[in-house]
């Protein structure tokens, strides 16, 4: 059993857990009361919208694609809510329309990728620029606030016990994502798609349909996160959520999901979300600016792919040299 534990630690998830423990320990020693529930809730709340999109992005990347447009969809949804309510639409209707817009953005991406067969990198790069452009077109350089009280309360006050609404949404979606990716047929198909498109096609998996569903879901979830972000911030601008895709993709890849698709688990992604949030918080406590924190995230993004690569090539080399040594031993006397 001891051995089993050690083997678990040797996995990517084990490594993340170990680093997470160290980061939390250091933070706790530096700041008394760091581990108190309220502080942890505050810490997650500051990035909960990104964490929600991370769940959807995990699905996209596991299926071997990428969605660079999520931050722009978040911004567009937030702007849509603000703009519609500014034009006099009833607020709940504005929210529903904003979610619909997000779903449509995702469907639009999915159409070009699954039906026309364009690379998701190019399509969602166009989306990254285009959806942000539509958001800017809608409210130009204004900042729109003045949302109804219940909406602001939803974003800023505790909703269930000490938990704010966005955190509850995240918790529910996390459970759903965990079950769907790990234990459902749909999740299994995503891994097949990511591992080998050929195998998926020849096995009769409806590739186009799954792709469209994945991207539509990604757009819808991003829009939901955007609306929640608007509620928390209380005001929306054309640049809301700009650049969030960096953090989101970093959290997914650091969680052990392969950028080539087909590999990774929700457990790793959760650990990586917690790790990045605690790291950012710790850096903030150490008086390191948000700018430098972004730099740290950039380095983490590269390291999360570089380190496994270097480790695997080192392992191959070691095996080869051991194999050569064994062969030399066998040839000896």
């Amino acid at each position, binding site marked *: 059993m001891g051995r089993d534990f050690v083997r678990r630690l040797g996995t990517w998830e084990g490594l993340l857990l170990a680093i997470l423990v160290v980061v939390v320990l250091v933070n706790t020693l530096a700041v008394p009361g760091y581990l108190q529930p309220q502080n942890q809730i505050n810490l997650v709340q500051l990035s909960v919208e990104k964490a929600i999109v991370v769940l959807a992005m995990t699905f996209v990347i596991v299926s071997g694609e*990428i969605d660079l447009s999520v931050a722009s969809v978040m911004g567009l949804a937030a702007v849509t809510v603000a703009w519609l309510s500014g034009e006099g639409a009833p607020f709940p209707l504005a929210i529903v329309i904003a979610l619909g817009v997000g779903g449509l953005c995702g469907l639009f991406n999915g159409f*070009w990728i699954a039906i*026309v*067969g*364009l*690379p998701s*990198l*190019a*399509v969602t*790069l*166009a*989306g*990254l*620029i*285009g*959806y*942000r*452009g*539509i958001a*800017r*077109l809608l409210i*130009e*350089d204004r900042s729109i606030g003045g949302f109804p009280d219940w909406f602001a309360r939803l974003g800023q006050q505790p909703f269930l016990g000490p938990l704010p609404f966005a955190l509850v949404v995240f918790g529910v979606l996390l459970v759903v994502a965990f079950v769907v990716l790990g234990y459902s047929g749909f999740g299994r198909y995503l891994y097949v798609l990511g591992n080998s498109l050929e195998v998926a096609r020849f096995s009769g998996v409806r590739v186009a349909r799954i792709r469209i569903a994945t991207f539509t879901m990604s757009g819808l979830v991003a829009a939901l996160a955007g609306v929640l972000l608007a509620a928390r911030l209380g005001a929306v601008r*054309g640049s809301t959520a700009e*650049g969030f*895709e*960096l953090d989101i*993709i*970093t959290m997914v*890849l650091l969680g052990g999901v392969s*950028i*080539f698709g087909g590999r990774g688990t929700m457990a790793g992604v959760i650990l990586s979300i917690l790790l990045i949030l605690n790291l950012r918080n710790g850096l903030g406590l150490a008086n390191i600016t948000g*700018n*430098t924190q*972004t*730099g740290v*995230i*950039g*380095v983490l*993004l*590269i390291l999360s*792919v*570089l380190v496994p*690569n*270097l480790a695997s*090539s080192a392992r191959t080399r070691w095996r080869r040299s051991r194999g050569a040594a064994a062969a030399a031993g066998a040839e000896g006397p």
Partner: protein
Amino acid sequence: MRYVRPEQLRELTLVFIIIAVLAFFATQIPDYLSGRTFTRISTSVAVIAVVAVGQTLVVLTRNIDLSVGSIVGVVAYVTGTLLTNDPNLSPAVAIAVAIGLGGALGALNGLLVAYGRVPAIVTTLGTLALYRVALVELSGAKTVTTDALPSWLLDLPATSLVSLGALDIRPLVVLALLIVVIFQLGLRYLPYGRRLFAIGSNPDAAQVAGFRVQRDVFAAFLLSGALSGLAGFMFLARFGNITVVAGQGLELQAVAAVVVGGVNIFGGIGSVVGALLGATLIDLLQQSLIRWLEVSEFLRDAFLGLLILLAVASDKVILGRLRTIWVRARRERDGSAAAAEASHGA
């Protein structure tokens, strides 16, 4: 028809579209076909074109470089600061510093992608943030201002090197055209250029054929960084005032120019001239539309996104089909020629 490859058809189409756009707006906007329009568009295309040439090299190898905007910003800022501190610095040294610094930043990308096997999208998304962060830290929120820069630099974008009638050709434009010509010829005739196409068409085959794929991909990123460095210098000369957001979003314009210019995002197909034409068309459309519709410049991004999508889609749907037809026609011709030769021999 015999000597026109599908890619050249794409370039010809772009030239025709550019002419059609010019003709259309000439009827719509008074005083459109003037020296001023030409100067404005050509100087703004010059900076993007140089970045797009580097991007072309990288995209040809089936990679992408999203960090170019940050490289342009860092280089413009560092070079500007150097010139502010020492106005007597010779132009040659300033340009060398710009190219060298850009090349160093590009080399880091290349190292990670080629030798660390980190996918280009991950690497350059990371360095896009990293180089920008470095710039913010480096600058301490100070900006480079026009009045502190030497006059030769500030006069550079406004002087005209050659005048063709009403058209003034600016030194920056000449520099950009020179870069385009050099790299077009290099890609076509140098072994390194041909290897980039081979690597992008089929990286595994290129490896099996004994090409040093890692070294060539590394060099492509290095060149992309060096060209972005040069573009950073041009950016400094053109604007003078450099803040920490200088060059932000340039990577998207460069990728757009390359894709609209017919460089295949899957690598292996495309040309530097195509990238120049793509950059020209995008800039022409954007500037003319803003003047014609009198819409705010906020339209620009929405429009750019749509253009990229249309370019990639048309490349896939129309050119893909043309390519198949072209290959089949050639195979038939070769087949019939071989058959004729065989019967002749018999």
